[in-house]
């Protein structure tokens, strides 16, 4: 398992995507799956920085780890900001998604892309901090 710590700021988004992308590539994922995973982690990390840290008047770090198993790749994102469970956040409904852009809500799009980009997104508040776990099934043919 590899792990790296980043500052809890928006400047960390690009290096976090690079870290995730390298882990996903090493796990044999295809280009499109790598992009979707990077997007998922990026959206959640953005929320952690903006809502978990900045909006809550907190500062801290984000730790990202990657673990490859026989069937999946698991990315863990650990932070110490205000807890924020993406699975209980409102995402746009089918009706919302078909509205004209000028009538669209700006919230929930990031969570929608995060949930869509991975096979499973779990969230847990642990004694080590708030942990998001991104699961991607690995296809046997690509290994």
């Amino acid at each position: 398992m590899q792990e790296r710590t980043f500052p809890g700021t928006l400047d960390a988004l690009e290096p976090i995507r690079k870290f995730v992308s390298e882990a996903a590539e090493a796990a044999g994922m295809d280009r499109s799956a790598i992009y979707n995973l990077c997007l998922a982690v990026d959206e959640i990390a953005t929320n952690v920085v903006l809502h978990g840290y900045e909006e809550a008047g907190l500062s801290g770090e984000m730790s990202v780890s990657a673990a490859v198993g026989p069937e999946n790749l698991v990315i863990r994102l650990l932070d110490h900001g205000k807890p924020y469970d993406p699975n209980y956040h409102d995402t746009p409904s089918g009706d919302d998604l078909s509205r004209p852009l000028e009538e669209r809500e700006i919230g929930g799009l990031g969570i929608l892309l995060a949930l869509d980009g991975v096979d499973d997104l779990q969230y847990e508040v642990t004694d080590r901090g708030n942990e998001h776990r991104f699961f991607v099934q690995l296809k046997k043919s690509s290994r």
Partner: protein
Amino acid sequence: MALEMSSSVQGVKALLTLSGELDGSSAPAVRETVDRLLSSSPSHLVLSVEKLSFMASAGLRILIFAKQKQPSLKIYFVKPQETVVETLKKTGFYQGVYITDSENIDEAAG
């Protein structure tokens, strides 16, 4: 890869070229540029994005901002990468923008 952008206004057409990665960190500068471009009330906002390799939801929110500011605005994506098109489709933005192969949108899509 950081985001690079350049912009110009040609008559009723505002052209914004984006290359690199559009995320929560680079979005505020793009939004500011779009805001400035819209001050001349163009009818078309042409986003030249052939070299835009990443776009997070922060990019989508700029599109909403532009349409809310000017509902009649037509937004064009010139040569978007497949991953960016996928994001537009998943979020329902695909129907709200025009995808084209040419910055010369008069000929391409009207």
